[in-house]
């Protein structure tokens, strides 16, 4: 009897070592953890890269002025190497690898370039300064202060306002068009549709997400633009409205999918209670289920916003790409994303145009990040309110 008890007691010792006997599980768990960690690291690295490329503009270290102080070649020796390097705009490694003759040659090029400087009152302006990025300016040839994006004109005009407005216009149209449709479809599929309709509709709508955006853009450019112009009779064929509608088609499945999940996860008991009180199915869906699913529906809209403002190909093809400031949705427009896509390949790496495009990229990053963050906060608050904790 006594011996048996000791045996039983001894067998308990294995409890302590239990977790060590499953090394494979431990390994897999760590592996998955590392993979998920790498996603965060990737996002951070991408942002760090974009931010680094845009930083000189933010810090005011770029100068796009066409008129700069020129140091005559003869006075080369009076400059310290650091000053000379800054004057020539070279990295330290590059500067060190050059011999004296090459440096001299570069200085001569600067002198030559100065002789050909444009005769323009705006030539000395550093157009990458904050003021010129966001405030209107009366450029030569313009009667009043205007927001102008003309990066490859003689005077490089980098005003971001037309692009920001363009992005917001297309996104607004997309959301106004897609959110009601996607939400109505989600309510129908999750609450009202018979089982067979649900089986068909859900995958069909989600299949929309599989259409390549270039195909949607092509469709918008060739078919929708003409049809919509005939219907509404506006002047420019490609505009924020057409681009927004096409963009809306692209985000409908995103908004639908998440909103439908949110609506479906509302407990059936709420619907049952509403129906037992004499609600119609529609009343139960609209007055009880939708309010209970509001946090999820809100998340769907925020995600849709993020997708719409970041979409590139559709707006590049269907918006007309005119960087003008206009309140009309039927004017041609140019978005931030389309600008980056269209211009980045033709810029000088490290030049002001290049850096401004990265600044736009960083702005997009910040906007979507902020939208998601704010969305998350609102969502949690709504959730707590529904659960009766606040």
């Amino acid at each position: 009897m006594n011996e048996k008890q000791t045996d039983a007691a001894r067998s308990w010792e294995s409890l302590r070592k239990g977790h060590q006997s499953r090394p494979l599980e431990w390994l897999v768990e760590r592996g998955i953890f590392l993979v998920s960690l790498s996603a965060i690291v990737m996002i951070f690295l991408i942002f760090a890269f974009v931010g680094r490329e845009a930083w000189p503009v933010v810090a005011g270290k770029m100068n796009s002025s066409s008129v700069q102080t020129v140091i005559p070649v003869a006075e080369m020796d009076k400059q310290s190497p650091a000053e000379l390097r800054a004057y020539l705009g070279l990295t330290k490694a590059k500067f060190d690898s050059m011999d004296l003759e090459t440096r001299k040659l570069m200085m001569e090029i600067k002198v030559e370039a100065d002789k050909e400087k444009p005769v323009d009152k705006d030539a000395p302006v550093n157009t990458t300064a904050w003021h010129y990025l966001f405030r209107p300016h009366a450029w030569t040839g313009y009667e009043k202060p205007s927001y102008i994006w003309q990066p490859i004109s003689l005077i490089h005009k980098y005003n971001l306002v037309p692009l920001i407005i363009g992005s917001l216009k297309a996104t607004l149209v997309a959301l106004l068009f897609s959110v009601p449709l996607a939400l109505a479809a989600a309510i129908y599929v999750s609450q009202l549709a018979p089982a067979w309709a649900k089986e068909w509709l859900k995958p069909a709508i989600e299949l929309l997400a599989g259409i390549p955006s270039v195909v949607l853009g092509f469709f918008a450019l060739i078919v929708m633009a003409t049809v919509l112009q005939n219907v509404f009779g506006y002047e420019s064929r490609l505009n924020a409205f057409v681009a927004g509608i096409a963009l809306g088609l692209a985000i409908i499945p995103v908004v639908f999918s998440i909103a439908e999940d949110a609506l479906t996860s509302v407990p059936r008991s709420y619907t049952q209670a509403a129906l037992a009180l004499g609600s119609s199915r529609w009343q139960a869906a609209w007055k009880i289920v939708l309010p209970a699913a509001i946090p999820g529906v809100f998340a769907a809209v925020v995600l849709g916003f993020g997708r719409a403002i970041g979409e590139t190909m559709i707006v590049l093809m269907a918006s007309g790409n005119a960087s003008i400031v206009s309140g009309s949705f039927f004017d041609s427009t140019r978005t931030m994303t389309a600008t980056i896509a269209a211009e980045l390949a033709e810029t000088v790496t490290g030049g002001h145009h290049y850096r401004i495009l990265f600044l736009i990229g960083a702005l997009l990053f910040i906007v979507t990040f902020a939208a998601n963050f704010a969305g998350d906060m609102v969502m949690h608050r709504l959730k707590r309110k529904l659960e009766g904790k606040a």
Partner: protein
Amino acid sequence: MTVSEITLPKFKVDSARPGASAEEHSSRAPLIDLKNLSFYYGRSQALKDISFFIREKVVTAFIGPSGCGKSTLLRCLNRMNDLIDGVRVEGEMRIHGHDINSPEVDVIELRKRVGMVFQRSNPFPKSIHENIAYALRLQGVKDRSEIDGIVENSLRGAALWDEVKDRLHTSALGLSGGQQQRLCIARAIAIKPEIILMDEPASALDPLATAKIEELVLDLKRDYTIVIVTHNMQQAARISDYTAFFYLGELIEYDTTTKIFTNPAKKQTEDYVTGRFG
């Protein structure tokens, strides 16, 4: 809520219990009349040829082992089974002589007259006030002071007013389970139904909350016809006037509760109520 605040109702299961004898209720008119009612989930038959009537303003309990069809029958009475795909009803089910199985019947209107309380309390994720106000607005009540009045009366009717009057506008999900269930009852009676169906309303509650619900049911039968499904034999004995015993989709016996529990006609009934099977 502390224990001392609750007065446990004292019920005895004996023939001397008021309102238990068949004679006393003979004046009560039949309200719900079932004739040859059969119910199918797809191919399997859940109810077999059920015929009996339920009298008005009494408590009728449906008892029987799990899967006997008692909940199915209950949900037939307000046509909640319509929500399930592939079900079929045969036979007649009349309330006040109107066949409510007819396709011409507006189930929405029917459910306003036949209220229901579910097994698990299911208040909406809204404020206490709004839970009841929603039901009233469905009825077309728009006047704010009228709504406030009915909300108070319903909460009083469900013996909940004193506990929640200071927090009417906080979320109903912050209430205890028993309070939530009484809120559901308040919500059901707010729209003045004639019949209230209760599907094991106390099965998820602790004994004190259960006692409160039972007390409430006895109180409500003055104004409403109550049909209650229960697994708890003592509960059926305590609160019901009539009891129907179901087994495998058939109505085995239906009589006054006193008769069913003291002198059942069928052996099966006796076995079940004495706990020999089920």
